[in-house]
């Protein structure tokens, strides 16, 4: 079974891109399943179900969603193997722009959109910088100039990625993406022991453990203070 990890900021078009790509893969009789990771809520699983695709969703709730991803991915892989899938796709929203769920040896795709602003490629960390494929969406509603400027910003933070423009509404470009996803030599039957491409951010302060009170006396563990300077005279 092949695995592809999709991630990208909320509302960038991940689900549309995956659905359009699956459409073209199904015509080639490839057996696909999807696992959607989110934080509090998602109804994307319904969209996948409607398309007749086996789907599971994982809501991380009070936990950091990317940590939740890392703790569950092996079980997810075993689920996919049990169903006899050829391709397992995981989809997760990058919620704090610092994390990335990509695993070494497993293809990682980042979906970002042209509307998100020209500085977005700069703001997103490893989720964009360490992706193998960057999909840029919503190109049909911004000018050619903005598309070119946006793509050049993406390429300066991740020059080695394959960058593609895909229209999530018409599916233009989805067939082309589908040809890059499956690679017989990348077949795996477990991710046990594999490594994340980038360490997730450290936390563990009193607020991680449920503290609600504000004030120095209640801050323990990994706490960092902003530098506000002393120009307030």
């Amino acid at each position, binding site marked *: 079974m092949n695995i592809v990890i999709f991630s990208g900021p909320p509302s960038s078009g991940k689900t549309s891109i995956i659905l359009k790509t699956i459409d*073209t893969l199904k*015509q080639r009789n490839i057996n696909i399943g999807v696992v959607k990771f989110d934080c509090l809520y998602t109804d994307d699983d319904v969209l996948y179900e409607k398309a007749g695709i086996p789907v599971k969703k994982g809501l991380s709730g009070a936990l950091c969603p990317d940590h939740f991803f890392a703790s569950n991915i092996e079980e997810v892989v075993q689920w996919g193997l049990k169903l006899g899938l050829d391709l397992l796709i995981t989809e997760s929203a990058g919620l704090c722009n*610092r994390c990335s769920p990509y695993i070494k040896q497993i293809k990682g795709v980042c979906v970002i959109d*042209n*509307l998100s602003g*020209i500085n977005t*490629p*700069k703001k997103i*960390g*490893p989720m964009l*910088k*360490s992706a193998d494929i*960057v999909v840029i969406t919503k*190109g*049909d*509603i*911004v*000018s*050619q*100039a*903005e598309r*070119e*400027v946006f*793509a*050049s*910003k*993406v*390429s*300066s*933070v*991740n*020059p*080695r*990625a*394959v*960058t593609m*423009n895909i*229209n999530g509404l*018409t*599916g*233009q*470009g989805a*067939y*082309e993406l589908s*040809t890059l996803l499956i690679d017989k030599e990348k077949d795996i039957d477990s991710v046990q022991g594999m490594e994340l491409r*980038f*360490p997730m*951010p*450290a936390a563990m302060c009193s607020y991680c453990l449920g503290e609600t009170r504000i004030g120095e006396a209640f801050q323990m563990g990994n706490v*960092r203070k902003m530098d506000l300077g002393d120009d307030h005279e």
Partner: protein
Amino acid sequence: MTMNNLSIRELIEKYPFVASYFEDNKLDINGFEDYTFEEYLNHFSGEEIENWAIDKERLKEDLEAFIVQMKEFLGIKDEVGIQSLTIVSGHDKSKNPEGFREFTINKSEIVSIVGPTGSGKSRLLADIEWTAQNDTPTGRTILIDGKKPDMKWRYSSNNKLVAQLSQNMNFVMDLTVREFLELHAQSRLVEDVEATIDKIIIAANNLAGEKFDIETPVTSLSGGQSRALMIADTAILSSSPIVLIDEIENAGIDRKKALDLLVSEDKIVLMATHDPTLALIADKRIVIKNGGIDKIIETNEEEKAILTDLERMDLFIQGMRSKLRSGERLGGKR
């Protein structure tokens, strides 16, 4: 690679574009100009590396890849550009062969594309953009200058074969026309930014019904002005040799001049349209049916005569429009 021994100052002297690599990766090199890139990366503390998600190995490898890519991009800019695009036929959705064998479009030619929604116009465009090699659902093959194209057209983010202009496009950045064009010119590594901007403004104002000022925010331009600016900018600044136009609304813009501008900049123009004036300006039109190219029609003498009538009507309507705008009464001979 040799860059390992160069100081950051020497790197920037040799490859001025690396400044944007440092900037976009939030690497503040001020005061470190005499360090090599590796030495600079090594100055970060463990805490900084963790806090700012700095991946030293990746940044080093990426810088090399970035330099190679930008050098390649500059090289392409110096080339003459492509001369022709050839579509070799495949089949439609029902696997019937398409109604032509091979179709070549040369630079400075305009070809229109007609066919109902969902008939396969997007697929044709995607085939061109991806330089299909009998490896897409239509089985078409795309040749550039009569040869199998370089794979760079597929995978590189800065060298896209096709630029697109469509009805739904908007400017979304909060910038003035000048700032906007500066940004685009910089991303294309243009040497004389000022002269290029002037050229675009003159061209855009030549197309727009109503002139606009260079200090106007792009988001405040009218529909016609926006289209004029987008077309002038695509013609002059975009590196893509093929331009696909999805209809040009007949308001606030001189469409004939817009097409002339694209053609004069050596673009190959493909135009999806059901507007008779636009369709007949093209020398040929591709008719799409059931996912395939059904036939290719050459515009004949009779149609060219109709075009003259249509252009006269367009002119008449445009005259009315500008009278309305300037507060005059509509009148005159009919």
